[in-house]
């Protein structure tokens, strides 16, 4: 068991030498990981594999520690199979499925080993489920993808939704086991949006890398492009100018404001409350147009760049943004207050899709979904990056773990983001907005943690001896949280699925990559 002195520790975006990552045997690694995550506020930011040779894969774990704002690393080498960590460490479950799928390794004893993205392993000829590399692998069409969790009995019926489902929304597959209206179990299958981004990043950065970051989860453009930009800045040993950091964080908050406003409207729509739905539909556009005022694009494309920001906010624009922020906030307040004061809405939201705090902790939920269970994780406070190191946004927490809590936390975050945005716009640091990045530290490992609007975004880069990407891992907050939605539906009416789904509003493409 490694002592605290053996652990390799660093802070957000600060690189370490790859060779310094402690290498343990499987049991030592598992014991360390258990210890790190047990009972305190630590989280598992990433657990992923990097091939070492034809027969072995090195598993890296990145844990995060809010109390000390540290990130810690450990590694272990595994062969074609190893004893799974999930039985002792439940929140490793989805990561181990990804490792199995990407590298064709079997984590023995994993309680629910199924593919998560439906693609061939990156090691030719290997497959954790014994499938041939000649045959196509498609989701929802053949085993093991179609081996859904099943409840048997005469009174049970099975409902399948998606990938093409009713709304204008990304595809996923939802398999319900129902008894009348009551859902015994929901299993979620993803992978339909898989575009092969992580593989395409290898050997970079190249001219597409940044554009991949902006589109890997297109509604979280600023979140992921900021995470990427910070990571490169860390690896290059530079800091973006403060003015740029402030602009990037303003953009990140505008992204949060737009999505939260839209979500509150969508939640209203799903319980048939049209006034708020209609007002918020318009207001979301107002926040997006504010982003477009800065960079010409409603989703923040072209704004965050390694080295800073491509666009400046001059005094005139700052004044305009302040005016728009104030106007939009006033109208959002009016629209959203209706939700909390309308009994028919409250009766649908309250107690619906409740996740107990202990379960949320065990599963490692992040972001809004965790804060709605009373878990105060927020990377802006815990691993401060950018201008958040100097200017804090209070963390929004509610404790009931239900649809109401997930809605209310969004409202609290809107309420707290607005003063932050106004403060930044009225006191932007002077100076330039962009700096040259230069070459990246070779043979290094660096991790960038950002708080996207859904939750913790984690980007991990490993560089080779030329300072190019030997490996790049993206963990979108949705990667942690899809299981939360599945659990929230247990013993709920199936007609509450849409409102629960909206209350999480997770990213399909951010998960699928």
């Amino acid at each position, binding site marked *: 068991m490694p002592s605290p002195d053996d652990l390799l520790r660093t802070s957000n975006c600060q690189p370490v030498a790859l060779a310094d990552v402690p290498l343990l045997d499987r049991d030592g690694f598992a014991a360390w990981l258990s210890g790190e995550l047990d009972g305190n506020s630590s989280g598992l930011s990433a657990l992923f594999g990097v091939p070492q040779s034809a027969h072995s894969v090195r598993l890296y774990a990145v844990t995060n520690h809010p109390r000390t704002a540290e990130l810690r690393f450990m590694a272990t080498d595994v062969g074609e199979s190893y004893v799974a960590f999930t039985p002792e460490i439940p929140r490793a479950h989805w990561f181990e499925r990804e490792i199995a799928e990407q590298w064709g390794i079997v984590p023995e004893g994993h309680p629910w080993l199924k593919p998560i993205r439906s693609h061939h392993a990156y090691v030719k000829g290997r497959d954790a489920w014994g499938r041939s590399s000649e045959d196509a692998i498609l989701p929802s069409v053949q085993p093991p993808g179609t081996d859904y969790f099943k409840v048997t009995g005469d009174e049970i019926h099975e409902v399948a939704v998606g990938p093409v489902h009713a709304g204008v929304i990304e595809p996923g597959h939802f398999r319900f086991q129902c008894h009348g209206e009551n859902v015994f179990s929901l299993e979620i299958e993803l992978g339909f949006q898989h575009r092969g981004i992580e593989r395409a990043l290898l050997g970079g950065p190249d001219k597409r890398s940044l554009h991949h970051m902006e589109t890997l989860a297109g*509604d979280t453009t600023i979140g992921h492009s900021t995470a990427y930009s910070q990571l490169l800045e860390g690896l290059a040993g530079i800091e973006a100018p403060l003015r740029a950091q402030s602009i990037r964080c303003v953009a990140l908050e505008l992204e949060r404001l737009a999505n939260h406003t839209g979500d509150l409207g969508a939640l209203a729509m799903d319980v048939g409350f049209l006034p708020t739905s*209609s007002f918020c*539909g318009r207001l979301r556009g107002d926040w997006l147009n504010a982003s477009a005022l800065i960079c010409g694009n409603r989703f923040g494309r072209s704004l965050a760049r390694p080295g800073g920001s491509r666009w400046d906010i001059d005094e005139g624009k700052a004044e305009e943004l302040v005016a728009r922020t104030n106007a939009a906030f006033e109208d959002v307040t009016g629209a959203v207050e209706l939700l909390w004061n309308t009994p028919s809405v409250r009766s649908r939201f309250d107690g619906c899709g409740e996740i107990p705090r202990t379960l949320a902790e065990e599963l490692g939920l992040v972001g809004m979904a965790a804060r709605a269970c009373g878990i105060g994780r927020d990377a802006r406070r815990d691993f401060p990056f950018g201008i958040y190191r100097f200017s804090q946004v209070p963390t929004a927490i509610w404790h009931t773990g239900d649809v109401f809590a997930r809605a209310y936390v969004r409202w609290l975050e809107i309420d707290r983001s607005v003063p932050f945005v106004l403060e930044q716009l009225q006191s932007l640091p002077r100076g330039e907005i962009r700096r040259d990045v230069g070459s990246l530290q070779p043979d290094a490992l660096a991790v960038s943690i950002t708080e996207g609007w859904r939750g913790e975004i984690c980007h991990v880069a490993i560089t080779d001896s030329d300072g190019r990407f030997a490996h790049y891992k993206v963990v979108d907050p949705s990667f942690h949280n899809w299981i939360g939605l599945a659990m929230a539906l247990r013993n709920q009416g199936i007609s509450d699925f849409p409102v629960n789904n909206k209350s999480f509003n997770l990213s399909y493409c951010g998960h699928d990559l």
Partner: protein
Amino acid sequence: MLKVLRERMNQGYRTMSWPAGAPPEMPDRYRGLPAIDATRCPDGCRECVDVCPTDAIERAPSSMKLDLGKCLFCTDCIDACPEGAIEFSSEFRMAFDKRASLVLDGKAVEMAQALDEKARRMFGRSLQLRQVSAGGCNACEADINVLGTIGFDLGRFGIHMVASPRHADGLVITGPVTENMRLALEKTYAATPAPKFVIAVGACAISGGPFRDHPEQNNGADSVLPVDLYIPGCPPHPMTILDGLLRMLGRVEERV
């Protein structure tokens, strides 16, 4: 109830008057229809060609070609050009009915023609669309969705997003068509009764966008289905999408 009414008075009437009235103003940094002034290009200069993430720009002997179907409307070419030859205008109208028309080469821009008389009679006042996201990043999807909100109010044109392909007159496709969605897309198209249209929205659906040539996807909708309308952008502004739909129905006539 009174609170709701009071809030409605407060929020006001928000539906734009366009196309009857003027369109909303685009922000000054908005990047709409681009143009490359080839007379400014130095001999042998390939800065924009090389820097473009999707290889949308080609240098031909006497012109510069920019493929709007590949263009991400990012700023990389503007930043790379030493002569300021590339400009993105504030023109948001960019819908095309032929793939080849998306390749701008300095000549006249040929925007989408309206459907023929028979189709216009059938769909001009009632067009039901099924959206299929085949690997889209959610930006195109979101800016299609926003057309249903009160500012744009798609419903006033008789255009609706429907829940099932069985109810649809056409498909609106976003995303590069991932391998994992190809079968679902094909089945959805087959389930849509004829006559039917296919509208490709966004760089991904037209050419694969930033994912072009990734083995996990198919470089856009027309690798799988016949496309009737192409709306470029990353994502296209909602006004661009709305203009495209109305242009197809013959409800906006103005040539660009």
